[in-house]
C-alpha cells in the first residue's frame, strides 16, 4: 500500500519559464507553480533587459535623450518618440506647426498598424497558426520601407524632433502610403480568413484570460488590453494631441474581456488607423515642419557660419585690448591652441589652430574676431588686418549668432524653464506616460516613464491562475508586452 501511494503521489511542480523562451516576447521570466496541467501560481520576474533609460535620460540633454526612447518599445519606436517629444514640448510650451502635427499623426498610426501586425503575427504563432505570421510580415515590411524612405531607418527611427519632425515627407511617400491604405483593408480579411472562425483559434482564445471592466481598470490596464473589456478609454479621444482632434475615428471595444475580444479590438483598431492615415493624407497642410524655438531646436544650417562664410580660410585673432583674460576660450578650444595667464590677454597660436570657430562663439567680451582670408598670415599682419568685432559685416554677425546658438545648444544644452509635467500618449500598447522634472539646467532632473508593458506584465498572474499551462502563452500574447519597454 505504501508503495502504491509513493508511486501515485502528486505534488505541485515548480517550473521556470523564460527568460529565454520564444513565446515570452523578449526576456520575461515566469516561475509557474503547476498542479498537473493547471496553473496554481505565477510569479513574473522582469528586469532582464534593464538598461537604465530613465537614469541615462538624466545625464543627457532633452535633445540627446530622444534615441533612448526608440529602444523602449522597439516594435513601435515611432510612437515612443512622439510621446517623448510631446511631453517635452508641453513642458516648455512649444507650439508645433500644423504640418508637423499631421505628419506625426500619420507616422504614429503607421506605427500602430506595424505594431498590431507584429502582435498578431507572434500571437498567432504562439498559439499555433504559423501562416498568419508570414502574411502579417508582408504588410509590416511595407510600412518599414516607408519609414526608411522618410528617415533612413526602419526600426529605431528617431524621426520626430522636439518642435516638429526631422525631414519633410516626399511626394513618393504620400503616394506609396496612399496605395498602402487602399490595399491594406483588403489584407485584413485575409488574416481573418485564416483564424477568425478557425475552431482551434476559438478554443484557444474564447474564455481565456477573462478580466472584467472594473478589474481591468483597477489593474491599470490601458490600450486595447483594457478596451477588450469594454472600457472605451483612449487618450487620442479623451486628451487629443497632435492632429487627433481633426480626424474622425472610432474606438473599438469588446464585451467579454477575453483573449478573443482583445484580438477583435486590435483588428478593428488597424482598420481605424488606416482611416486616420487616409484622412491625414488628404488634410495634410503645407507649412513649416519645425517650430521656431531657438532654444530647443538646432539652428538652420544654411544660415550658419561655416556654410555662409567658410571658416577654414579665416584666421581667428584675439584683440589684446579687449581681452579680459577670462579663460573661457582657452577652456573651450578643442585643439588647446590658446595660451594665456588668468586676467592677462590671451593669444592664439596660429599653427595649432584648427579654424573651428569654437573660441569665436565662446568669447563674451567681443575680444575674439576673425581675419577674413587670413589663414597662415604672420602674427603682425593679423594684428593689422583684424576687424574689431563691432565692425564685422552685418551678414557675418548674423551667421555667427546662429553658430553661437548652435554651439551652446550642443555644448551646454538649452536653457529651459523649471517645472514638472506628466503627459500621456496612446501608443499601440496602451498609455505611455512621460514625467519630467526640469530644474532649469539643460537636462531633466528626473525622467520617469510609465510603460504600459510593465503594468500589463503585472496582470499576468491574475489572468493565468486556474487555466492550463498552454494558456499562459496565449495570455502573454494577449496583453501585448515588449520587454524593452517593461524593463526600460
Amino acid at each position: 500500500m505504501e508503495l502504491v501511494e509513493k508511486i501515485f503521489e502528486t505534488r505541485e511542480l515548480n517550473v521556470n519559464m523564460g527568460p529565454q523562451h520564444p513565446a515570452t516576447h523578449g526576456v520575461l521570466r515566469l516561475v509557474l507553480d503547476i498542479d498537473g496541467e493547471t496553473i496554481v501560481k505565477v510569479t513574473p520576474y522582469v528586469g532582464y533587459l534593464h538598461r537604465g533609460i530613465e537614469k541615462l535620460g538624466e545625464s543627457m540633454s532633452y535633445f540627446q535623450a530622444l534615441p533612448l526612447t526608440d529602444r523602449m518599445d522597439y516594435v513601435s519606436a515611432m510612437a515612443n518618440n512622439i510621446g517623448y517629444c510631446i511631453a517635452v514640448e508641453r513642458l516648455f510650451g512649444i507650439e508645433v506647426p500644423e504640418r508637423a502635427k499631421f505628419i506625426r499623426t500619420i507616422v504614429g498610426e503607421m506605427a500602430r498598424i506595424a505594431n498590431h501586425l507584429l502582435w498578431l503575427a507572434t500571437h498567432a504563432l504562439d498559439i499555433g497558426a504559423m501562416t498568419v505570421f508570414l502574411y502579417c510580415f508582408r504588410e509590416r515590411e511595407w510600412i518599414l520601407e516607408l519609414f526608411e524612405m522618410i528617415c533612413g531607418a526602419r526600426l529605431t527611427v528617431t524621426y520626430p524632433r522636439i518642435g516638429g519632425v526631422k525631414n519633410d515627407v516626399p511626394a513618393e511617400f504620400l503616394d506609396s502610403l496612399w496605395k498602402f491604405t487602399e490595399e491594406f483593408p483588403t489584407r485584413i480579411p485575409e488574416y481573418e480568413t485564416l483564424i477568425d472562425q478557425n475552431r482551434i483559434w476559438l478554443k484557444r482564445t474564447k474564455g481565456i484570460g477573462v478580466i472584467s471592466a472594473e478589474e481591468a481598470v483597477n489593474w491599470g490596464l490601458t490600450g486595447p488590453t483594457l478596451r477588450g473589456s469594454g472600457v472605451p478609454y483612449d487618450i487620442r479621444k479623451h486628451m487629443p494631441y497632435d492632429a487627433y482632434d481633426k480626424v474622425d475615428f472610432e474606438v473599438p471595444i469588446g464585451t467579454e474581456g477575453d483573449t478573443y475580444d482583445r484580438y477583435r479590438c486590435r483588428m478593428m483598431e488597424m482598420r481605424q488607423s488606416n482611416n486616420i492615415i487616409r484622412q491625414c493624407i488628404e488634410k495634410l497642410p503645407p507649412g513649416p515642419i519645425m517650430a521656431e524655438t531657438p532654444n530647443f531646436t538646432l539652428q538652420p544650417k544654411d544660415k550658419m557660419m561655416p556654410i555662409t562664410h567658410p571658416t577654414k580660410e579665416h584666421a581667428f585673432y584675439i584683440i589684446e585690448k579687449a581681452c579680459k583674460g577670462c579663460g573661457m576660450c582657452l577652456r573651450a578650444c578643442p585643439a588647446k591652441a590658446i595660451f594665456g595667464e588668468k586676467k592677462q590677454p590671451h593669444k592664439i597660436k596660429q599653427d595649432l589652430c584648427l579654424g573651428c570657430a569654437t573660441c569665436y562663439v565662446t568669447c563674451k567680451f567681443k575680444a575674439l574676431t576673425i581675419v577674413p582670408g587670413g589663414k597662415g598670415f604672420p602674427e603682425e599682419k593679423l594684428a593689422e588686418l583684424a576687424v574689431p568685432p563691432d565692425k564685422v559685416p552685418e551678414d557675418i554677425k548674423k551667421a555667427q549668432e546662429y553658430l553661437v546658438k548652435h554651439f551652446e545648444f550642443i555644448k551646454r544644452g538649452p536653457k529651459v524653464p523649471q517645472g514638472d509635467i506628466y503627459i500621456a500618449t496612446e501608443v499601440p500598447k496602451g498609455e505611455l506616460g512621460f514625467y519630467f522634472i526640469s530644474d532649469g539646467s539643460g537636462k531633466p532632473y528626473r525622467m520617469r516613464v510609465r510603460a504600459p508593458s510593465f503594468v500589463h506584465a503585472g496582470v499576468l498572474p491574475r489572468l493565468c491562475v486556474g487555466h492550463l499551462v498552454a494558456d499562459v502563452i496565449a495570455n502573454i500574447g494577449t496583453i501585448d508586452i515588449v520587454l524593452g519597454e517593461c524593463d526600460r
Partner: protein
Amino acid sequence: MKTKETIRKIVKTIFFIEIIKGLALTLKRLFSHAVTIQYPVERRKIAPGFRGQHALAKDVEGKAKCVGCGLCATICPSQCISVGREKGKVSRYEIDTLRCIFCGFCVEACPYGAIVLTENYEYSGYKKEDIYLTREKLLFNWDKFMAGKKGEEYFKRFWRPMSEDFETPSIQAIWRGRH
C-alpha cells in the same frame, strides 16, 4: 429557421469549412509572386538617406572637411566618437561602430557638413578592429559610397534642419487627389 441554422452549423463542423477557406487562401498565394528576398543574391533597394556606416566628407579639392571641433562627439548619445588634434590638424577621428546606435545626431550636429551616414550596411568582421572606424577608413568610405552627386544630394536632403524647415518651402508634398 432554427433547423436551417443547426444544419449549417453541423455542415460547418463536419466539413471544416473555415479551415478549408484558410487553406484555399494559402493555395491561392502559392501562385502569386514571392515577397521574400534571397538575400546575398538579391538585395533590397536602399532608400537614399539610409543611416548606415559613417563616412567623413571631402570637399571639392579632396581634403577632409572635418575641422575637429568635436561637436559630433559632444552630442553623440552613446559617446562613441573621439577626435584628436595635433598641430592644427585633425590627427585622429575614430568611431566605435559597436557602440553607435545610428541615430544620425552627429550628422545633424556638425555645422561643417563633414560627417555623413552612408548606405553601407554590410560591414561585418571577425574582430572588433575590423569594424572600428578610423579616419582613413572613414575618408575611404566617402570615396566609395558618397563622392560626387550623391554626397551633394545627401547634404541637400538629409542634413537638417535647413531654414526651409522653419518656413513654408516653395515645393512641398501635399495630397494631389486620388488618381
